[in-house]
């Protein structure tokens, strides 16, 4: 009984959500099924399980960023992803228009959600991006942070159009429109083409088996 009722509710939900997302009704339906599989035992998707999905299905590895992605999905900031947040988040994540993806990335990168990406936030995100040079620098006992600060300066030079030493959404949007490679300038927060296409084709074909067993890490 619960199963049939659940399916009917799911279908209605799917209907409503497909209008607000880039997915078809069937695709939303399958996403909701996936959600159910992931939240067996509980009713909502938590941070850990979500990060496992990001890791297993989309091969993402950066902890800080994965955390930020969760926060970007979690619009109501309650540390759980509802079905709606799941579907709508994935809609942008996998099929977003350029504007949607720019807004999404900006959200990810804006750590304190104050509407600006500051120098400190950039530093945080880029801190681990200079592996080899750091090693080289070790030999001269220089301050390794100098290199990162330099890169932060480079980014600001390139993207800070209103010259206020921080990136607003406008700055970011303008920069990405000029050079679309800068969309994920501070680190990968969108899926790699390979994984994205695989997921979407599986979704279309109806293979909704996310490897849940691996979720138990």
């Amino acid at each position, binding site marked *: 009984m619960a199963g049939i009722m659940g399916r009917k509710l799911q279908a209605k939900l799917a209907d409503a959500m497909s209008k607000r997302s880039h997915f078809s009704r069937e695709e939303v339906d399958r996403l909701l099924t996936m959600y159910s599989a992931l939240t067996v035992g509980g009713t909502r998707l938590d941070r850990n399980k979500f990060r496992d999905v990001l890791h297993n299905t989309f091969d993402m590895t950066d902890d800080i960023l994965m955390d930020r992605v969760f926060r970007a999905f979690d619009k109501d900031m309650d540390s759980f992803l509802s079905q709606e947040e799941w579907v709508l988040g994935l809609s942008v994540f996998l099929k977003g228009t350029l504007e949607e993806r720019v807004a999404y990335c900006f959200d990810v990168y804006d750590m304190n959600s104050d509407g600006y990406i500051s120098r400190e936030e950039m530093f945080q995100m*880029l801190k*681990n*991006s*200079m*592996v*080899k*040079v*750091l090693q*080289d*620098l070790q*030999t*001269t006992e*220089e301050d390794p942070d*100098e*290199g990162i600060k*330099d*890169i932060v300066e*480079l*980014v600001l*030079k*390139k993207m800070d159009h209103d010259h206020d030493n921080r990136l607003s959404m406008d700055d970011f949007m303008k920069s990405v429109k000029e*050079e679309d*490679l*800068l969309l*994920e*300038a*501070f*680190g*990968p927060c969108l899926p*790699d*083409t390979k994984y994205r296409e695989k997921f979407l084709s599986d979704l279309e074909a109806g293979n909704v088996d996310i490897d849940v067993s691996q979720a138990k890490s």
Partner: protein
Amino acid sequence: CGIIAEYGEFQSFQLYFKRFNLRTKDMPARTDSTAQRRSVMTRSITNSRSISKKQKAEESYSETSNDDMDDDDDTRDRRKIHADLPSEYWQIQKLIKYLKGGNPTATLIALCSLRDFDLSQDICQIAIRDVDGLEALVNLLDTTEIKCQVASLKILKDISQSKPISRSLTDLGAIQSLIRLLSSSVADLQCLAAETIANIAKLTRARRLVRKDGGISKFVSLLNIPPNTNIDVLKEDGQAVELLRCAALGLCSLSKSKKNKRKMKSSGLIQHLSKLITLEVETILVPVVATLSECSVDPEYRAAICEGGIIQYLSKFLESSNQELVSHCAKAIFHCAEDDLTRTLIRQHAGLEPLVRLIKFTENVSMLDGVTGAIWKVAIDRENCLVFRDLKLCESLVPLLHSQPEEVMINVAGSIAECAKIPENIEQIRKAGGLTHLVNLLSGTNPTLLINVAHALGKCATEPDSATIIDKYDGVRLLWSLLKSPNPQVQSSAAWAICPCIDNNKDAGEMVRSLVGGLELIVSLLKSDNREVLASICSAVANIAKDEQNLAVLTDHGVVPILSKLVVAHAADDYVKGHIADAIGRCCIWGNNRKEFGARGVVKPLVRYLKSKDTFVYKAAAMALFHLSLEPENCVVMHENHAKQWLVNMVGDDDWVLQEAAAGCIANIRHLALANDISKSGR
């Protein structure tokens, strides 16, 4: 030092200096000399590849920096060393270091920042090379990070326009990586890789490598449009159009090598190009037609192009407003019009009118070169010359005979020479003052131009009015002086041109006599071993000898012995021997020449000439024998060699001059025989 202008720059400058201590092993300690710096930098380019990366890093960082930033003297000194190099140099090197040492995120930022510099500048390219930047960029192509590959390709595509960079990239094995990317599933990568290869393939070595690495078939397959594709949808698809354009661009560069052309053909290039032309998308058309133009140098291509119905499109595109496209079309037509069929097709598809209209656009030299070339070759067809007559082409061509680049004038002179088949065209040329321009060009030195100009003058001189004008402007003397040229083709075209000048000029004899050493020169040229020269000079001799006085002079210069030698020497060459016989015939009229010729044994070979299938040869031989037969000794030889049986056939020929000559010759032989019989019987 104005280079370190802003304080901010100076500050970061000091930071770099402290951090990386970019005093490489090669740079001398303290020097301001620019020349030394330049030689050092060139050394560092060649050295950088041989020094291993680790070794270099050690050398760069081994010197500890002076931590005491308050020591102004020291920093000022250091500032002096590096002050010679502009800030771009250091900034670029720093970016390359980040590129090499960072994760994909940092690499991407470094790559994007690199593109802010004008990398076509020498100093920027040197900066990149000095830290193995090219190698780093090429290595990025082999990773799986798509964004980094795209960013790296964008840079490579731009800098590969420089030849030295292309050379280095080829050395680094970039071609293999690029060819691999042609098969990528990411269209952006395919396009960028194709365009980069198009730049690098301007080098011969690179073209060969592309072929050896299997790149040609990949390029050709990129041009493939599957049979059921909706063409309208395709045209709207910007990505697909861009891919076709880049692939065509690559093929255009690659087609410069002969072996590549063949490989492309066997991969089915022509069918693809035919299909692409029908799409009529301008951005794709330009490289496609450029490729066709390059390939149509090869005769196998030309046949396929004709059959493929491409000529009608070429004619159509001549009307385009895109001058680059028109230029390539014209060049393609220039090559293809070596074949008769093409010349006809161009006329049928209304390609002649646009060509005539286009010669007014004199500012675009490349286009003008192509257009005039095309006109030259299509004018080989007589029907086309008639059309050109009606379009008054020659009037428009004449102004191009001066103050134009030589390539253009060569084509224009060639066109005029061909158009002069039609008398009205010669009139147009004459009235537009073309003859004076042509004669002026005879003073030049470019052999090809001289050949075409002589050719043109010769054809024009078939009209008596023109011949007079040419002589008036000293044309004959100038043509004669071309006979002294070391180039046999120049000599022969001058000689051919001289013939009608003499033929159509009333005062020809006087004119020739006035040329100091002219006749001696002619006779000396009979010793040439170039058959074209021989044929033309003999023809000239035949014309000159019409004037008795000149014939006497020729004889004085020993024309008889020389011609006699030639008769036997060239007995196998139909082309030359007709003219030799002709010359001999004309030279017989003076003094003892017939006897002299006979004594030197020309009769027997000339009789054999009668057997030739070539009309000109046997007619000239018959004429010569007729003149020779006025000398009894010669008749004896003719009789012994059964000349009569050949001459008898000619008595019935349509050409009445030949009839008379043959009959007269036979009569002379008979008279002698009769006289012989009478004298025999009288004994």
